[in-house]
C-alpha cells in the first residue's frame, strides 16, 4: 500500500478524535490545528510501524506528544510536571471566582468549564476515557504511564470534577443556598 493510501486508511479516520483531544488540551482552536498538523506530519514518518487495529491509540499518542512539545515551547513548564502541589494549586478554588464564571457563561457551560479547568494530567485521561471510550490499557500506552496510574488518575479526575467550583456554583444556585 502506498504511503498516501495508508495515511488515508489509518490516520484520516481518527482526525476528529485527534482534533478533539488537541482542542481540549490546548483550549484554543488555532493552537489545536497547529498541534494536529504537526502530529500528522509525524504520523506520516512512522506510518509503516502501525497496524490497523492499533491506529487510533497510536495516532493519539502522537497527537499528545505533539501537544506537549508545543506546550513546552509556548507556555510555562510548571504545570506540565505531575507534581502534587502544582496540581492542587491549579484547582485552588480561590483562584477562580465560580459565581462570576457561571454568570458569564450560563449554567449549561459549567461542566465544560469544569473540564477545561482540570489540570492537564487529569484532563487528558478523562477525555480519553469518557469521550474516546478507550480502555485503561490503551490510555496507559497513550499517556505512557502504568495502568494502575490510569486508574488512580481517573478516580482523581472524577473527584476533582465533582467538587469543581464551576459545578458547585451551579448546584448552589439551583438549591438557593450552599450545596
Amino acid at each position, binding site marked *: 500500500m502506498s*504511503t*498516501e493510501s495508508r*495515511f*488515508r486508511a489509518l*490516520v*484520516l479516520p481518527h*482526525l*476528529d478524535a*485527534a*482534533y*478533539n483531544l488537541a*482542542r*481540549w488540551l490546548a483550549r484554543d*482552536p488555532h493552537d*489545536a*490545528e497547529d498541534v*494536529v*498538523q504537526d502530529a*500528522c*506530519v509525524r504520523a*506520516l*514518518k*512512522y506510518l509503516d*510501524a*502501525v*497496524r490497523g487495529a*492499533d491506529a487510533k491509540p*497510536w495516532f493519539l*499518542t502522537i497527537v499528545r506528544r505533539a501537544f506537549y512539545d508545543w506546550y513546552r515551547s509556548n507556555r510555562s513548564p510548571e504545570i506540565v510536571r505531575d507534581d502534587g502541589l502544582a496540581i492542587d494549586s491549579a484547582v485552588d478554588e480561590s483562584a477562580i471566582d465560580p459565581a462570576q464564571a457561571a454568570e458569564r457563561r450560563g449554567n*449549561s457551560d459549567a*461542566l*465544560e468549564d469544569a*473540564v477545561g479547568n482540570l489540570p492537564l494530567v487529569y484532563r487528558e485521561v*478523562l477525555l480519553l*476515557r*469518557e*469521550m474516546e471510550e478507550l*480502555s*485503561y*490499557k490503551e490510555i496507559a*500506552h497513550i499517556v*505512557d*504511564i*502504568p*495502568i*494502575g496510574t490510569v*486508574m*488512580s488518575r*481517573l*478516580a482523581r479526575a*472524577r473527584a476533582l*470534577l*465533582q467538587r469543581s467550583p464551576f459545578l458547585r456554583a451551579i448546584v448552589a444556585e439551583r438549591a438557593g443556598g450552599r450545596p
Partner: protein
Amino acid sequence: MNCHEAAPLISAFADGEIDRVQSRDIKTHLEGCPDCGKKHRDILDLRSRLRAEVPYFTAPPALRARIGDLPRTTPTRSADRVERGRWRWLLSGALAGCAATVLAWIVGTSVLTWRANEDFVAQAVQAHVRAALNNHLIEVASSDQHTVKPWLSARLDYSPPVPDLSRDGFTLTGARLEYLAGRSVATLVYRYRDHTIDVFVRPESSGAPPSAPRTVRGFNAAHATGSGMSWLAVSDLNPEALAGFVGRIARGPDQ
C-alpha cells in the same frame, strides 16, 4: 468487601475495568452500602452529563483538507532518515570536539554518566521487581520476534532489535514498556529455565563501556552495547550467564 476496600475501585468498576471475580464483590457491596452506591451512581451520572453537555470538537473542514494533502506535500521517508542521520553526525561531531579539547570536561561527564547509569540500573531493577510482583511482566505476549518488534516500534520513537536466542536456551516470551529515567524504554522479556530476564533496550547515546555485572538487591544486572543500542539485562540468573547473554544479544544476529 468493606467500604475501605471498595472505595478506590468504584471508578474503575464504573469503567468495566475490574476483573470478574472482584466485580461481583464490588457489586454486592454497592447494593448493600448507600454511600458507595451513591458514589457509583454519581460517576455514571457524571458520564452521561459529560457526553451530553460537553462538546466534542470535530476537525474543521479546512484543516481536514490541508491534512488530506499532506502525503503529497511532505518530503518522503528517506529524506527524513537522512536528516536524522545528519543529526547523529552533528551530535557525535560535537562530542568528539569537546573530548579532544577539554579533558577535565570528559572526566566530569564520565563521572556524571557513571552516576546516571548507576541510577538507571537501580531504576531498572526496581522496574523488574515491580513488574514481577504485579505479575505485569508482559504486555505483548509472543515468542515471535516479528510480532514483538512492530508492537514496540509502534509505541516508541525507536525500533529496538528483538534477537532470537532460542538456540542458546533463552526463549523470548514477550515485551512491555517501562518508563525509566524520563523516557519510555523497550523491555524484552526472555526466559531461561526458571529465570525471567528483563532486557531494557535504549538507543545508545553515551557509548559508555559495558560495566562488569553488578548485584542490586539480590538481582544481577549486566550491560552491553551493540547494534546501535544500549542493553541492560536484569534477572536472578547468575551473573556470568547473564553477562554472556547480554553480550550475545547486543552483538545481534550471527554474521
